[in-house]
């Protein structure tokens, strides 16, 4: 079980309010990702749930029980830290066993659970090593092992992949997703990387300056971003924003079109000069200048498009993929 509810939770450090009143419910078994730029309060929010920080006001409930004043050790949550926070003086085995020892389990039970977790995480051969002797990916798995043996109500992940190199990150992303599939335990995952959010989450919470900008499934956020901030934050490369006359034609202060929703079309309404082209093989992202719409327009073209830098071309946005926003940045329609 692991339903976590935040009611009117706030957090201030001195006079700075990091989290204005915030309500959020995380359902049992859900994989929720908190995403936002650095300093948006996502880590603070996670630490409030963990109990590593006090709330300034408001209530945190775990499985219907008020846990606002409960110390972290008693909340039944497990956390995986950005630096892994492994105990350097203990072997892998003792690292994983530590929470069980603290819970006062007997030797046989501890051994059983550690062995089980180690084999599930491919750590069996490394049980007697120290964390210092392991690679980044292995350390990450030890941290996860230490979290799963407790069978917690929920897992908290604080940017767990940011210290890994790109290739490893993709692998671990899949492993964590599979782990969630297997355990079906609530997971709360903090990241600043929208790709991680999109690929892993059941539900994404986009935060800015402590405020929830939007909550929804990855596709909901992609299809119907509620405002300019979410529209710009979700999706890679970033959505193109156009304001001025062309926006007013659509009855909006700003319109947004994702690069993948602009086609090269000799009869298209937009025209510009091709700048740098980023060739990824499967796709090419073209930077288009001098369109009179925005400084640069990013356009996704086919992998082997033949346009040269400096050439001029015409483009057409897909009419049903144009997002419209009002002066305040909120979505229209």
């Amino acid at each position, binding site marked *: 079980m692991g339903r976590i509810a935040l009611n009117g939770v706030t957090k201030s450090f001195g006079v700075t309010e990091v989290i204005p009143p915030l309500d959020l419910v995380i359902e049992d078994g859900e994989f929720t990702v908190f995403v936002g730029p650095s300093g948006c309060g996502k880590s603070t929010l996670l630490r409030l749930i963990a109990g590593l*920080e006090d709330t300034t006001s408001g209530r945190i409930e775990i499985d219907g029980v008020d846990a606002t004043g409960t110390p972290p050790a008693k909340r039944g949550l497990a956390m995986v830290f950005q630096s892994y926070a492994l105990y350097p003086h203990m072997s892998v085995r003792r690292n994983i066993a530590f929470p069980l020892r603290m819970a006062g389990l007997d030797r046989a039970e501890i051994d059983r659970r550690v062995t089980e977790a180690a084999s599930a995480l491919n750590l069996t051969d490394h049980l007697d090593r120290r964390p210092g002797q392991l690679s980044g990916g292995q350390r990450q798995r030890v941290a996860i092992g230490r979290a799963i043996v407790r069978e917690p109500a929920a897992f908290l992940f604080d940017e767990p992949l940011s210290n890994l190199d790109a290739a490893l990150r993709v692998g671990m992303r899949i492993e964590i997703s599979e782990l969630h599939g297997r355990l079906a335990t609530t997971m709360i995952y903090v990241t600043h990387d929208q790709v991680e959010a999109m690929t892993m989450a059941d539900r994404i919470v986009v935060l800015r300056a402590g405020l929830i900008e939007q909550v929804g499934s990855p596709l909901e956020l992609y299809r119907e971003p509620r405002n300019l901030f979410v529209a710009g934050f979700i999706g890679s490369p970033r959505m193109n924003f156009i304001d001025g006359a062309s926006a007013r034609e659509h009855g909006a202060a700003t319109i947004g079109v994702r690069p993948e929703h602009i086609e090269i079309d000799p009869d298209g309404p937009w025209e510009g000069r091709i700048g740098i082209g980023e060739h990824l093989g499967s796709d090419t992202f073209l930077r288009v200048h001098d369109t009179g719409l925005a400084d640069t327009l990013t356009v996704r073209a086919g992998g082997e498009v033949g346009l040269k830098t400096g050439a001029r071309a015409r483009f057409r946005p897909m009419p049903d993929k144009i997002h419209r926003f009002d002066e305040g940045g909120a979505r229209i329609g």
Partner: protein
Amino acid sequence: MATKSSRSAARVMLAPAVILLLGWMLVPLTMTLFFSFKKYLPLRGDSLERGLDWVGFANYARFISSSSFWPSVQTTLVMVGCVLAVTVVLGILLALLLDQPFWGRGVVRILVIAPFFVMPTVSALVWKNMFMDPVNGLLAHLWRFFGAEPVSWLSDASLASVIMIVSWQWLPFATLILLTAIQSLDSEQLEAAEMDGAPALGRFAHIILPHLGRAITIVILIQTIFLLSIFAEIFVTTGGAFGTRTLTYLIFQRVVDSQNIGLGSAGGVYAIILANIVAIFLMRIVGKNLDR
């Protein structure tokens, strides 16, 4: 960044140390203050039980007007200042030397830090007798070897001799801290300066020395703490004679030798004031340097 419960735990955990030190500071300090306003000569029959006469600031006036007061303050400051200067300057030179690659670094390092292990009474005795003795001391032998007249170090150049002994004891400490600091200097910075055409002396003045700033502060702070209360070295070598009577030693003589507790206590208060002036001055610098 922490929770209320960990903050209150922190207060509880800090309390024993704070209470102990507060007691250690306040109780004797209050008593010293109390005695400093009293006539208290145990040898002449004054005792706490029979009550002591209140003499106001008489002890203070007498202590400060005594002919030995200002010389002792001067001696204290000269001694601390000279030892600091000698150890910092030699320490920097030594650290620069030991930072170079050479054979047997481990052994030389041990040789250099060894004096720090020697208890002050021992080093004072050894220097006084085996080196500075005007007849049989090694320095006397050396002087005679060169056909010079041996020097009575501890009577003719007493303050300088004490400064030398104390510097010998504290040089290892200064060297070690400065060496550690030099080793933490990013060698790319030096190479960049070399590429920019800075000569060796320029590199030292503009890169190494500023980098050592914090380490030098630490050396000065910690040594001053210990040097202000130098006792054994004087006790053993000159017994405060020949211009080596520091304020600490003067008060010691008033309290222990002449058993004038009131006068000694007034002196103690002066010493505390002097220490505080130095302390405020130092803490300012250190407080700033600790923020890094």
